[in-house]
């Protein structure tokens, strides 16, 4: 749809008003638009309230919530690399009780869709976080973080084994009827296997990709630049890896794919959408430009108008292979 001559205004006629439908469906959930902000880069939203219109975002994927409060990894936790950065935050978060008490009310009062990113060291942790948030009234959706490269147990240990992805997805699926997204790790041989496992176990969507394991060494001091030695690579350097992952996943599963990894501009997001994504997340780019996600959204809408593409879901059909 969209690019054939039949949908173009006739030459000489005033262009008819064209308003693309930006909404995206993820299981039972409708997002007002395809652009969200990625977990770990946006806190719980309010940190950025002074800098952009949060309610214009399609979704906020929160900082990970674990059952227990986590102080996080030793410092330094950040290192900049060419067109990217390494982090080893270690899922620092105030824990489930404080999240429900201190963060959930403000998230509920917002118009954007809240997707709580859930992490844990064991299967029961994931279930408990979701159950207790549900008992507290729930949020719009959950994103299972089975792919964090920066924690010793859980996290990526779950995300690199399709059988474990299936287990955790099934268990959480039983705990909620809300939209359930599984965030996939690129630190695997074939990301389609974990994507299929998530789909078969009841996920409504997958998001891809989490960070890629990386390391940087300070040659002067001969020490790793991160206290944890390795960390997760994000930023533009990661984008081609993410686009390829989304392309392959989207041809292996029928559920929606949420693309992320190095998106800073609308063109970056459109790469993902053309490659097969149904929605996107902007992460590291927010650090450089707090309004990056909204500029990405504006650019996607402008591109859809210009190319007379009616729905976001139509974009992936426009890739010329």
């Amino acid at each position, binding site marked *: 749809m969209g690019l054939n001559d039949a949908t173009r205004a006739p030459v000489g006629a005033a262009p008819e008003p064209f308003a693309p439908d930006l909404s995206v469906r993820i299981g039972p959930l409708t997002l007002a638009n395809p652009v969200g902000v990625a977990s*770990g*880069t*946006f*806190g719980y939203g309010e*940190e*950025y309230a*002074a*800098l952009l219109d949060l309610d214009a975002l399609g979704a906020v994927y929160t*900082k990970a919530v674990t059952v227990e409060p986590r*102080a*996080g*990894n*030793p*410092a*330094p*936790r*950040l*290192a*900049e690399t*060419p*067109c*990217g*950065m390494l*982090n080893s*935050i270690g899922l*620092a978060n105030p824990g489930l009780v404080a999240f429900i008490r201190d963060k959930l009310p403000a998230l509920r009062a917002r118009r954007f869709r809240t997707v709580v990113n859930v992490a844990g060291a064991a299967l029961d942790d994931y279930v408990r976080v979701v159950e207790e948030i549900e008992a507290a009234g729930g949020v719009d959706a959950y994103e299972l973080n089975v792919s964090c490269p920066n924690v010793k147990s859980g996290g990526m240990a779950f995300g690199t084994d399709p059988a474990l992805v299936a287990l955790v997805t099934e268990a959480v699926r039983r705990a909620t009827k809300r939209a359930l997204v599984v965030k996939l790790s690129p630190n695997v041989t074939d990301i389609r296997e974990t994507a299929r496992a998530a789909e078969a176990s009841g996920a409504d969507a997958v998001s891809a990709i989490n960070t890629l394991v990386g390391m940087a060494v300070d040659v002067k001091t001969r020490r790793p630049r991160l206290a944890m030695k390795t960390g997760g690579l994000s*930023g*533009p*350097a990661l984008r081609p890896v993410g686009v390829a992952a989304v392309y392959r996943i989207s041809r292996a599963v029928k559920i929606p794919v949420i693309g992320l990894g190095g998106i*800073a501009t609308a063109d970056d997001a459109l790469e993902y959408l053309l490659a097969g994504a149904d929605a996107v997340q902007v992460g*590291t780019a*927010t*650090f*450089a*430009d*707090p*309004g990056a996600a909204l500029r990405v959204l504006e650019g996607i809408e402008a591109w859809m108008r210009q190319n007379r593409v009616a729905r976001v879901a139509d974009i992936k059909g426009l890739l010329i292979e």
Partner: protein
Amino acid sequence: MVRIDTELLSKRRVAEGYFELRLRWPSGAGAPAAGQFLTLRARGGGDPLLRRPFAFASHDAAEDEATLVIQERGSATRALATLEPGAKLDLLGPLGRGFAFPERGTEPVLVAGGIGVGPVLFLRASLDAAGVASRFILGARTAALVPESLLPRGAGVEVRTDDGSLGTRGTAADAVAALPRDARVALFACGPKPMMAALDRIAAERGWPYQAAVEEWMACGVGACMGCAVPLKGGGYSRACADGPVLDGRLVKWD
């Protein structure tokens, strides 16, 4: 806290590898306090990727101007050092918590080490404006690294260099240790970790309050990413950007 596009008004070299940048800081952006900082995007695109944090070194509300003192260290600061007046600047600030004014009856001692000089100069000017006398101590490796033209005028200004090439030979912490033990000193400092740790030992031993402006790598600068973790003696971390950059120096694990 706002993100603004503004411009560089002037730039001058103030010591070897050190530059003072004077920039337009409109009143609508909010008045920064000493110890607060801004982040600056050196240029668009992916490299350098992250904004860089810099402490305010002064603010002139009447002229809508502020200054930063930067040191050429890596690609971002090298790019900044080559900017010419009129260059556009993408700024986010004022960020973080600044210095709290000293309690009545205490004698404020302001200690700057190396590139930590900016926020300490700003504090000195704020205290001067409030009619509060303070002692100002600057430590540097050598005379070439001392921004002499920026040093406050008036009484109670002391320079220490490791090699004795300017002022007294020794460190800024030596100068603090030489203060009378029974004085009611309130320490305020920004500088390299060894200096900050030495001041912590003196403060702990003498029971002096110690406000310390810390420096860390940052990604977001607004308290969201948890990247700029400063370890605390009692366990856990503070965020340099949102809990600091001015922290209780006696709680920070410096080593």
